[in-house]
C-alpha cells in the first residue's frame, strides 16, 4: 500500500470500502487497493459493494458537473486545436464567444479550369452513387432490429428497465443477471440466446457480447463482436461463444466463421467441429460426457494449446474419511493437488498444505465441482458449498488433470472451448408469433 492508502481495511471495513470507492472514482487507487476493491466486488458483499461504488461514481460525476468547468473547457480547447474537427465553422464560433480567433490560412491560387473540368462528371456520378447507397443502407437499417422472443431465469435490463417478450431491441446495452436467459430473433430469422451474467449490445445483423455466454443459430454475414476479436458467419451456422475477463472463445457446431487473427493479422476460418480461443488458437471443439459412476482413477489429458477447457463432475462424499484428490500436472511432472473432503477443500504442493476452505452445508453428501481454465497456467474452481471461486495456479501450462480417491464421481463432463449449445437455446423462436 502506498503512503496515501485509505483507512486500514480491518479498522472499519465499511469506511475502507467507501474510501476505496472514492479512490476508484477519482482514478487514484494503486494496484493493491484496486485488488482489494476487486475482491470486495467478488465476495459475499459484492452486491452491496457494487451498489456503494456506483453511488460514489455517480456522486463524483455530480460534483464535477457542479464544480468543474473542465468538461466544457476541454471541448473548447480541442476545437481550438482542431482535434478531431474537420470543419472550422464551429471552432470559429466558439472561439469568437470565448474571445479568441483562429489563425487564418493563406489564400491559394485557383485551380486551372482546364484541369478541373474533367473531374465534374465523375463528381456527379460519385455523388449519385453515395446517395443511392445511403438510401439503401438507411432503408435496410430501419427494419432489422431484433425482437425479444424469450426471457427467463433472472433480471434482464436495458438502462434499468426490464426487457420484455415481444419488445423490439434498439442499440442500447442490455445487462443480464445471474442465470438469466434472453433469446433474440432478427427479422430474417437469425437467433441468439444469451445466458447471464452477461452484457450485450444488439445490432443490425449482429450482436456484441462484452461478457457472458451466447449461442447463435444464424445465416451468413452475421457479425459477432467480442472484447478481443470480431467474427462473421460465412454460411448458415450454429455456434457458441463465451467471453470472460476480456478473453473469448468460439465454437462452431455447424457452418463456417471468419475472424481476424490477432497474432498474424490475417483473416482465418473456424470450421464446424473447431473452436477458437482469443483469436489466436484454433483447436478441436470437444465435449465429452462420461456416463456412470467412476470409482477408478480418472485421468484427463488436456490440450494446453486449446487455451480454454473445463471439467465438471459430481463427487459423493459419503464416509467421513472420503477424499478426492485432483492433481494438475505440467509436462515437467510438477504437481499441485486439490483435496476435496467432507466439509473442506484444500490445496497441496508435495507435503505442504497451501490453503484450506471450509464448505457450507452438510459435510457428507454430493458436491458439484467445476474446474475451468483461466489462462494457460491457471484455472478457477467453483463448487457447491464454496462461497467463492478459487484461483489455482501452476507455473507452466497444465498438461493433465487426474482424479483418484475413495469416492464415487458421476456426471463427468470435459470440454474445450465454450459450453455446447444447450437445449434451452432458441426456445420460442423462429417467428413464433
Amino acid at each position, binding site marked *: 500500500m502506498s503512503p*496515501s492508502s485509505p483507512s486500514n481495511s480491518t479498522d472499519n471495513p465499511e469506511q475502507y470500502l467507501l474510501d476505496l470507492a*472514492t*479512490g476508484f472514482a477519482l482514478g*487514484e487507487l494503486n*494496484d493493491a487497493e484496486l485488488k482489494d476493491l476487486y475482491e470486495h466486488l467478488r465476495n459475499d458483499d459484492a452486491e452491496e459493494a457494487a451498489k456503494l461504488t456506483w453511488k460514489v461514481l455517480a456522486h*463524483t460525476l455530480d460534483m464535477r458537473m457542479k464544480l468543474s468547468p473542465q468538461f466544457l473547457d476541454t471541448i473548447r480547447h480541442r476545437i481550438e486545436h482542431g482535434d478531431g474537427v474537420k*470543419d472550422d465553422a464551429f471552432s470559429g464560433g466558439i472561439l469568437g464567444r470565448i474571445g479568441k480567433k483562429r489563425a487564418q490560412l493563406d489564400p491559394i491560387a485557383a485551380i486551372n479550369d482546364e484541369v478541373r473540368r474533367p473531374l465534374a462528371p465523375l463528381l456527379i456520378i460519385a455523388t449519385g452513387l453515395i446517395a443511392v447507397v445511403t438510401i439503401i443502407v438507411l432503408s435496410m437499417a430501419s427494419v432489422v432490429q431484433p425482437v425479444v422472443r424469450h426471457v427467463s431465469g433472472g*433480471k434482464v435490463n436495458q438502462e434499468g428497465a426490464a426487457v420484455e417478450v415481444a419488445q423490439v431491441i434498439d442499440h442500447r446495452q442490455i445487462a443480464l443477471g445471474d442465470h438469466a436467459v434472453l433469446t433474440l430473433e432478427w427479422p430474417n430469422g437469425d437467433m441468439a440466446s444469451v445466458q447471464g451474467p452477461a452484457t450485450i449490445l444488439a445490432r443490425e445483423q449482429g450482436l456484441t457480447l462484452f461478457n457472458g455466454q451466447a449461442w447463435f443459430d444464424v445465416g451468413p454475414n452475421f457479425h459477432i463482436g467480442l*472484447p478481443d476479436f470480431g467474427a462473421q458467419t460465412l454460411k448458415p451456422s450454429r455456434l457458441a461463444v463465451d467471453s470472460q475477463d476480456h478473453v473469448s472463445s468460439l465454437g462452431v457446431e455447424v457452418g463456417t466463421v471468419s475472424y481476424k487473427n490477432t497474432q498474424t493479422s490475417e483473416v482465418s476460418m473456424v470450421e464446424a467441429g473447431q473452436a477458437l480461443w482469443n483469436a489466436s488458437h484454433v483447436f478441436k471443439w470437444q465435449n465429452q460426457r462420461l456416463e456412470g459412476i467412476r470409482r477408478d482413477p480418472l485421468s484427463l489429458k488436456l490440450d494446453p494449446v486449446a487455451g480454454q477447457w473445463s471439467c465438471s463432475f459430481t463427487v459423493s462424499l459419503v464416509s467421513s474419511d472420503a477424499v478426492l484428490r485432483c492433481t494438475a500436472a505440467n509436462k515437467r511432472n510438477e504437481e499441485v493437488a486439490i483435496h476435496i473432503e467432507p466439509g473442506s477443500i484444500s490445496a497441496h504442493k508435495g507435503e505442504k498444505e497451501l490453503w484450506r476452505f471450509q464448505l457450507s452445508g452438510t459435510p457428507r453428501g454430493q458436491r458439484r465441482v467445476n474446474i475451468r481454465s483461466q489462462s494457460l497456467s491457471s484455472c478457477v474452481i467453483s463448487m457447491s458449498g464454496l462461497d467463492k471461486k478459487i484461483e489455482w495456479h501452476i507455473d507452466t501450462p497444465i498438461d493433465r488433470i487426474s482424479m483418484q480417491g475413495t469416492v464415487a464421481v458421476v456426471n463427468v463432463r470435459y470440454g474445450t472451448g465454450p459450453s455446447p449449445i444447450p437445449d434451452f437455446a432458441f426456445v420460442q423462436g423462429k417467428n413464433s408469433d
Partner: protein
Amino acid sequence: MADQLDEWMCLARDEEDHDAFAAVLNETHHLIRATTLRECADGDLAEEIAQETFVRAWSKRHQYRTGTSPRAWLLSIARSQLLDYHRRNNREHRHLRDLIRQELMRRTPDDKDEWTTARLDALEECLTGVAGDQRELLDLVHQQGLTTDAAADVLGIKAAACRKRLSRLQQTLRQCAEKRLQDKL
C-alpha cells in the same frame, strides 16, 4: 424541450449556427456524461467519451436527421465511441481497473431516477452549506482537478488523511442531497 432541441440541432446543421449547437451542448451534456458513466463504470473514461461525442457530433452534424431526438442521436454516437474503445482495449491492455469495471457492469443500478437533474439541484443546495477547509478541498480536487495527494500538500495535511476527509465529506454531501430529494417527494 425535445422539439426545441431538434430545432436547434437542425439550425446547427443547416445554417451552421454555432449558438444553436452550444445550446444543444448545454442542454444535453449532463445526460450524455451520466449515461456514458453508467455504461462504462469509469469516471475518466466516461468524460473522455462524452467529450469525443460532442466534438464528433459537430463534425458530423450534416448526418443529423430532422425529427430525430438529438439526445438519442448523441447517445448513439457516445455508444459507438464506447464500442470502439472496447474493441481497442484488447487483452494486452486489460488490467485490474477493467476487471472492476466488468464486475460493476454486471450490477448496474436499476433505478433510472438516480440520474435525474433533480439530484444535481439538491446537491447544489447542499454545497452552499460547505465552507472553509472543506470547501477548499472540494474545489482543489473537483474544480482544479488536483489529485488528493496534491491537494494534501496544499492543505498541509497527510495524503492518507486527505482522501479519508474527502471520502467522508462526499458521503455527507451525498446523504444531504438524498435527504433533500426525499423531502421534496
